């Protein structure tokens, strides 16, 4: 009963609980929070407490003293550390209700990967409930991504969505408010970063951190050979000499570094097309596939996929927030239809 009363002072939320970033969409208000899914934990004797969450905690990644550990509580789109995820959600839910005096108790919709198990989904549900939510609904990520991209999911027309997140890439074919085919590959932005770290280590004999790798990816990373070659200066620790050294990388080298994770995504897309029912395949051949998620921002990924599949490929508008926005719209659609199970999954 108290949750119901507190619910009056809360807003409906849609949470895209991602491996790299958590986004919260507040109904009728838009995206209210976009922060890294990182929590810094301080250990004092046997006592553990939260030192920082989100952006502040991300700055600490790889730079923490002995008594603080900055961790990412989600791995591959699912909860790796239940308690820390709960703390993080509690902090984020509180943050979007900053002006509220009463402890918020919102209705929450959380987006989950297609291939997450029963146990993993239950963990997400429980975690959101413990963080103060009064009602939790789960929606599969590609469905939310498709709604967020504005695709006609309710029609009897096949649409294909490729959502490239931080930890996973979700591929789904959607028709009539349901997922016809879905696949998850554990390749995403993080794997791109790791591939860059490994490449630099192999070719330059230097070690760089993940944050540097991410910066390289954002500035000169590309999925397809570029007309103009870009360069970037980076500093890393030389493994032979043991001292920091500066060196230059160019976009062709990064393209080479990204070959392995990119080919895994291309393979997964191709296998989705192979297993697609023929009627839907013809719809997709006509309209093409839609890229969402932060990975869609990698330069010319659409060109690569268009060439490999022979289909038109479009990038959704504002791909980073598609899932969270789609979740918000899904909440509205459920209310409108008066059916809480319309798009949700168990």
């Amino acid at each position, binding site marked *: 009963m108290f949750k119901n*009363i507190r619910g009056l002072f809360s807003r409906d939320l849609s949470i895209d609980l991602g491996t790299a970033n958590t986004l919260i969409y507040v109904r009728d208000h838009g995206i209210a929070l976009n922060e890294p899914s990182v929590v810094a934990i301080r250990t004092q004797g046997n006592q553990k407490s939260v030192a920082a969450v989100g952006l502040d905690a991300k700055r600490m990644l790889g730079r923490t003293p002995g008594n603080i550990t900055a961790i990412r509580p989600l791995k591959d789109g699912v909860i790796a550390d239940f308690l820390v995820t709960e703390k993080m959600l509690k902090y984020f839910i509180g943050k979007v209700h900053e002006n509220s005096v009463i402890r918020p108790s919102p209705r929450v919709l959380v987006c989950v990967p297609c291939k997450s198990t029963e146990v993993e989904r239950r963990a997400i549900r429980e975690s959101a409930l413990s963080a103060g939510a009064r009602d939790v609904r789960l929606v599969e990520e590609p469905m939310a991504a498709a709604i967020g991209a504005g695709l*006609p999911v309710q029609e009897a027309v096949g649409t294909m969505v490729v959502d490239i997140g931080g930890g996973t890439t979700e591929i789904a074919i959607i028709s009539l408010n349901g997922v016809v085919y879905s696949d998850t590959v554990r390749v995403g932005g993080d794997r791109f970063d790791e591939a860059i770290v490994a490449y630099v280590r192999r070719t330059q004999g230097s070690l760089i951190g993940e944050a540097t790798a991410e910066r390289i990816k954002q500035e000169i990373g590309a999925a397809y050979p570029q007309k103009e070659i870009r360069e970037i200066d980076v500093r890393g620790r030389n493994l032979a000499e043991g001292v920091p050294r500066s060196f230059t990388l160019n976009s062709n080298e990064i393209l080479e570094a990204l070959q392995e994770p990119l080919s895994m995504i291309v393979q997964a897309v191709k296998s989705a097309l192979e297993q697609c029912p023929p009627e839907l395949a013809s719809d997709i051949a006509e309209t093409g596939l839609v890229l969402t998620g932060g990975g869609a921002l990698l330069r010319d990924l659409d060109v690569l996929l268009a060439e490999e599949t022979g289909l038109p490929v479009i990038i959704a*508008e504002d791909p980073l927030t598609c899932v969270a926005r789609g979740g918000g719209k899904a909440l509205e659609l459920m209310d409108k239809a008066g059916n809480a199970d319309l798009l949700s999954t168990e």
Partner: protein
Amino acid sequence: MTEAAESPGRTLQAARLERSFAVREVAEALNLPIDTVEAIEADQFDRLPSAVFARGYVRAYAKLLELDADALAAACRVDASEQTEVVPAARSSGLMLEPTALLGGAFGVLLLLIIAVLAIWVWPEDEQASSPLEPVATLPQRAPDDAVALASASIEPTYEDLGELAEAAPQAGQPPLAFDDGGRRITPGGDDRLEFAFTEECWVEIKSAAGRNLYSDLSRSGDSLDLVGRGPFRILLGYAPGVSMSFNGEPVALGPHTRNNVANLVLGQ
């Protein structure tokens, strides 16, 4: 004029011809049927599967020709947003509360009642001090935000506006967004006339049926306002007792639409 000020299709076609690409080459590069490329160049976006795909194709085409993809995609935004905004508009008209929400609402009312009773009991003199004019007093604070929104809305060239402009320019010989016969235009077409006369300071906000902000400003006592455009208009008047208004020459009674001195009405349906 920027690239997007011309129609996106024509801009793309011109850029393609400049680079001497054939339609077939573009179609092959984008894996699109030739018909689709031709439809984009002719600005016939209704021949494409949906607004999302239309914008996606325009963006991919612009990228291929190394043009500003976002500006061109944004130029075909208006017709698309009007298609998609039908859903929220319908939602706001029909209030569908779940049983739990209704239950919650009852609890809320009960809670507020208890608080009110307590407040009267503890501070009886404070009750008289609260002024009924409070909501009106807060309204002017919103002016800067809305002014910014209005400014950005008017700078952004929209495809619909441009289509209207292209049609209207040869006949009228003047830009449709200017003042004409004393009335200020708030939409490119239509001749519905809204006239306001103010005896008190009042906030005025006018939106299109799709929720787009057409006009918002604070009017002072003694001001009058004459607006022309195509209805329906969603009108909000911050202090209704200080305004008299007419629509297409006929006076509008604000009483039935007024609550707490704030009038909310829709005209021209």
